[in-house]
């Protein structure tokens, strides 16, 4: 990145008489800003194409016919250009534009959510006329207009900058809002009877330069000057967008996206933006609980921890450490994950630890791949997706990829179960059928690369990025892994972006919360003796994954389960297996924040703090380690996960050796090979905006100043100006730049042998009249964190089945009808959705939506073949 910047061609121009330089191709507004001259603007947004709509940014530019007023957000800087931003004509133009924009703008700042952080207010004060000559009646509208369950529109405040509309068209690709009318009647409008139905709708609220668009959950909640903020990281999915968490009186009220060039480029998904509401759930676990006579009673921490330690020691003495298992961990931050990893593997001595719920990818494979960064997508010539619907699973990653393919910046090959919002842009796509995934490699080479004249990609495959994940439950994970290995072997220089979706799953895996692994992306085999020296013990043999653990509980070889912020009953594909195991288990201990289905089976519940209540680091799908801060104090008697692990360990008689999360940070940095030299990020984490991709030497640390245009992210800078500084800076201290060179890495991904073969069972052929069942995940479902957030409690849809329209015709059903899908005696009803890209051999079912639960039909041991009837 830095190299690229220095190679760019420069031009010289004069700014108000002084000679300055700029990068060729930059807009005048950007060039001036970099040279310290802020030009007022409304419609210009650095992450969207310029439109020149508002005319606020007029400057005088020399031309053959003398100086003329030009919109600086629309005109590129040229060599020798004379730009004047201070002249009388410019001042007069600014005056005029503002007077004009204010003709119809109501003077209701005192009751407007934007008041205090409003670009229109601010710029009117700095550049405006001070008085208006307009005495006529302003326009009026019915207000507010609810355009979706999350967004309200006050049309009379709109200044027609088009930012919201351009976001919907250009960035998210869902043009559900547009201008309607003409002249003074122009208004932002949805289509009558429809909603602004988008996972990204609240970004429009953030970029609206006035108070026309407001977020329902935040409307009238607070004034910006009463908010305090910190920079943090969203932990709802593995993209881990950078955001500012803002609270008043110890209550989080909203979050705003931060423009991190490497990750989210200022966007957030709606779920990430207001998902924090789960913190205020009425089902929050506020104190440790022990079950007595079938009822939970609140107890003190020492009592609860003693109970847990007693259960663990009894289990360990009676049946050995292998009778204990840990399930989950993606909700934990890296410090919590490391502490529990150390407790399980280094103190108790069990390797039955799995952060994934048998729906992901083997970390031994992920660690062996050449990992891509999100920014690698920008450079890629070809992107191949072999994963679920990215909009549902990793929303902001979807935004990046969608914008790139929609602008024809790369060729997309899509391997998916059915239609996704990316399908329409795909140069090549195939529908996946369980058991037939292995043909993918041949398809890719023979049909795709050759037809685009890219046969030589096998030698020059540096431009390919594969986005790989589990395309749907019901396709054997091993089959997918087999294909990924084959791809990695055929394209040795291609990069891979693993698409697991759970919040800090990559942090959990990196910290060793997976069978056979130890912290820092190393195996028990390779580093067992190293950690054996440092820790009390290490497990003797490779342990079980979640599915195997549940089976062992059922057959009696395990009896104690510790659930680390996971709810297998709602989140594990095979619900019946979980229920059977939970009924049989002797001890179930939950480290949990909110009561859920699984906590009902617990003997002890230990309350854990949630995102934004605890400080620490997290790792995203690129392997980027960033800081996630604590904005509010933890609810009730909740503790951070690492504290809970330490308490249990101490009670078991072995001190984990941590007095603070910084202690854990330094231990991770000295023990975990892939995390060498990251101390700065762990210990004084606050100052390192975009974090660093581990292991450090593999990806050069890129430094790029954050864009800090006050209008780009209304709120951040405005608030900053009014006090309460944001805790982390916009630019990296120069010391960080050197991090890459000083490290000696002992991490080597070649220890994960991509050639090791996995065997997966071949599918039994299904009968002509039956179908393979595949489950797909949605962003909104009945998961605990969503159900407990006020804004999303009703966001789940009715259960559905997606079928190819050909089959609908055969079955004589229409879209919207109810059908029954059955497997042996289990029958599940759901609405029919037609999807012409689903194979005729497959039925796709929804996951964890309202009414029927399609998981009844899934069992991980069998091939999932179902029948369909009307």
């Amino acid at each position, binding site marked *: 990145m830095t190299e690229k910047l220095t190679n760019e061609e420069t031009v010289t121009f004069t700014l108000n008489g002084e000679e300055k330089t700029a990068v060729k191709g930059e807009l005048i507004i950007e060039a001036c800003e970099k040279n310290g001259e802020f030009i007022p603007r409304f419609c210009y947004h650095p992450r969207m194409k310029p439109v020149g709509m508002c005319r606020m940014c007029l400057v005088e530019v020399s031309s053959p016919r003398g100086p003329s007023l030009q919109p600086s957000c629309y005109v590129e800087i040229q060599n020798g250009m004379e730009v004047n931003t201070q002249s009388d004509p410019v001042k007069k133009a600014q005056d005029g534009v503002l007077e004009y924009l204010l003709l119809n703008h109501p003077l209701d700042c005192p009751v407007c959510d934007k008041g205090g952080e409003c670009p229109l207010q601010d710029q009117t004060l700095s550049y405006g006329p001070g008085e208006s000559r307009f005495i006529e009646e302003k326009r009026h509208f019915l207000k507010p207009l609810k355009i979706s369950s999350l967004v309200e529109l006050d049309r009379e405040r709109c200044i027609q900058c088009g930012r919201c509309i351009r976001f919907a*068209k250009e960035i998210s690709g*869902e*043009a*559900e*809002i*547009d*201008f*309607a*009318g*003409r002249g003074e009647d122009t208004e932002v*409008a*949805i*289509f*009558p*009877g*429809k909603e602004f139905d988008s996972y990204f709708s609240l970004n429009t609220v953030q970029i609206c330069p006035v108070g026309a668009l407001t977020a329902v959950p935040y409307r009238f909640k607070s004034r910006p000057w009463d908010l305090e903020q910190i920079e943090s990281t969203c932990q709802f999915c593995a993209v881990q967008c950078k955001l500012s968490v803002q609270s008043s009186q110890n209550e989080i009220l909203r979050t705003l996206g931060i423009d991190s060039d490497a990750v989210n480029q200022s966007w957030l998904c709606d779920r990430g933006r207001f998902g924090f509401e789960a913190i205020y759930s009425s089902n929050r676990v506020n104190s440790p609980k022990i079950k007595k006579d079938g009822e939970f009673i609140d107890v003190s921490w020492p009592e609860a921890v003693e109970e847990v330690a007693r259960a663990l020691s009894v289990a360990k003495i009676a049946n050995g450490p292998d009778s204990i298992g840990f399930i989950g961990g993606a909700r934990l931050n890296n410090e919590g994950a490391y502490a529990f990893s150390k407790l399980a593997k280094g103190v108790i001595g069990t390797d039955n630890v799995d952060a994934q719920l048998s729906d992901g990818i083997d970390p031994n494979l992920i660690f062996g791949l050449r990992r891509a960064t999100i920014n690698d997508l920008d450079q890629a010539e070809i992107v191949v997706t072999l994963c679920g619907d990215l909009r549902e699973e990793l929303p902001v990653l979807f935004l990046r990829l969608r914008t790139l393919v929609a602008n024809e910046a790369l060729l997309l090959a899509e391997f998916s179960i059915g239609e996704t919002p990316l399908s329409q842009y795909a140069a090549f796509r195939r529908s996946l059928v369980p058991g037939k995934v292995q043909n993918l490699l041949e398809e890719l080479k023979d049909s795709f690369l050759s037809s685009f004249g890219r046969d030589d990609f096998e030698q020059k495959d540096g431009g390919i990025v594969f986005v790989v994940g589990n395309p749907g439950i019901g396709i054997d994970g091993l089959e997918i892994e087999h294909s990924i290995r084959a791809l990695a072997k055929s394209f040795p220089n291609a990069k891979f972006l693993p698409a697991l979706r759970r919040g800090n799953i990559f942090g959990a895996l990196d910290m060793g919360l997976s069978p056979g692994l130890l912290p820092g992306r190393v195996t028990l085999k390779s580093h067992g003796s190293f950690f054996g020296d440092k820790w009390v013990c290490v497990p003797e043999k490779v342990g079980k994954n979640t599915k195997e653990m549940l089976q062992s509980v059922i057959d009696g070889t395990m009896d104690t389960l510790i659930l680390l912020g996971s709810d297998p009953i709602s989140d594990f594909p095979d619900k019946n297996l979980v229920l059977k195991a939970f009924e049989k288990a002797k001890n179930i201990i939950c480290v949990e924040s909110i009561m859920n289905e699984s906590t009902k089976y617990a003997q002890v519940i230990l309350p854990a703090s949630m995102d934004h209540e605890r400080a620490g680091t997290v790792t995203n799908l690129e392997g980027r380690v960033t800081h996630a801060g604590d904005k509010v104090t933890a609810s009730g008697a909740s503790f951070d996960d690492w504290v809970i692990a330490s308490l249990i360990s101490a009670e078991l008689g072995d001190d984990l050796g941590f007095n603070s999360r910084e202690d854990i940070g330094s231990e991770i940095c000295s023990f975990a090979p892939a995390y060498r030299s990251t101390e700065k990020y762990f210990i004084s984490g606050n100052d390192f905006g975009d974090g660093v991709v581990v292991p450090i030497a593999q990806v050069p640390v890129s430094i790029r100043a954050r864009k800090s245009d006050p209008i780009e992210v209304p709120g951040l800078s405005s608030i900053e100006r009014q006090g309460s500084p944001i805790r982390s800076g916009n630019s990296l201290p120069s010391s960080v730049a050197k991090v890459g060179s000083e490290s000696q890495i002992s991490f080597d991904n070649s220890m994960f042998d991509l050639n090791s073969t996995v065997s997966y069972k071949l599918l039994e052929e299904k009968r002509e009249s039956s179908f393979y069942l595949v489950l797909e995940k949605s962003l909104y479902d009945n998961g605990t964190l969503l159900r407990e957030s006020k804004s999303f409690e009703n966001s789940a849809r009715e259960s559905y089945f997606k079928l190819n329209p050909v089959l609908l015709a055969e079955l004589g059903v229409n879209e919207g009808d109810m059908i029954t899908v059955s497997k042996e005696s289990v029958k599940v009803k759901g609405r029919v959705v037609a999807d012409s890209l689903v194979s005729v051999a497959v039925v796709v079912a929804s996951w964890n939506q309202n009414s029927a639960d399609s998981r009844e039909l899934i069992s991980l041991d069998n091939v999932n073949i179902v029948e369909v009837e009307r």
Partner: protein
Amino acid sequence: MTHLSAELVEKCKKVVELYPSKRSALIPLCHIAQGQNGWLTPEAIEDVASLVGVSPAEVRGTASFYDMFHLEPVGKHVIAMCTNIACMLAGAYELLEHAQEKLGVSPGGTTTDKEFTLEESECLAGCDKAPCIQVNHRFFGPMDNASFDTLLADLKSGKLADVVPPHGVLIRIDREHKRKVNYEAIDAERVEIDAAIKERKLKLEAANNATVGKDS
């Protein structure tokens, strides 16, 4: 199932074919769709949206910009009455007043029998017929109160059915185009033109240089 008749959908598809980018057909398609009910029903808008591959909100946004598209139901005959300068001087306001009285509606209104919608319009480019009016985009003029009354009667009785279609349809793009824009030909031509220009430039330069040489 589309709201537009199968016939119109076919017609729309042909029109879409004529453009290099589908969305360019948006406005012609709105005209065709308006031809069915006299106004752009939400269902028709959704059909147009899917035919040109944009969202219904975008189609509605575009259509709402133009006065000739109706987003609310209109009568069988839409009467547009010009009140710009030429017509105004020739008595357009008096005529408008008469029309309002006669129809019992003000501009923008539709009679209860759904026969007529009255609109006040800008110059219709029929100034030679001032005061000029359009009924479903067919010109009539010069008008006076009496001829206006006769016109209304004739329209109602169906006497003018041949001249004035039930709904204003402007679009006549059903030429049987065999192909889209021939880019190859245009590009080839461009290359030729560019080459010719270059050649001329070179010649001129050579000539210039020759003269310069002579002078010195």
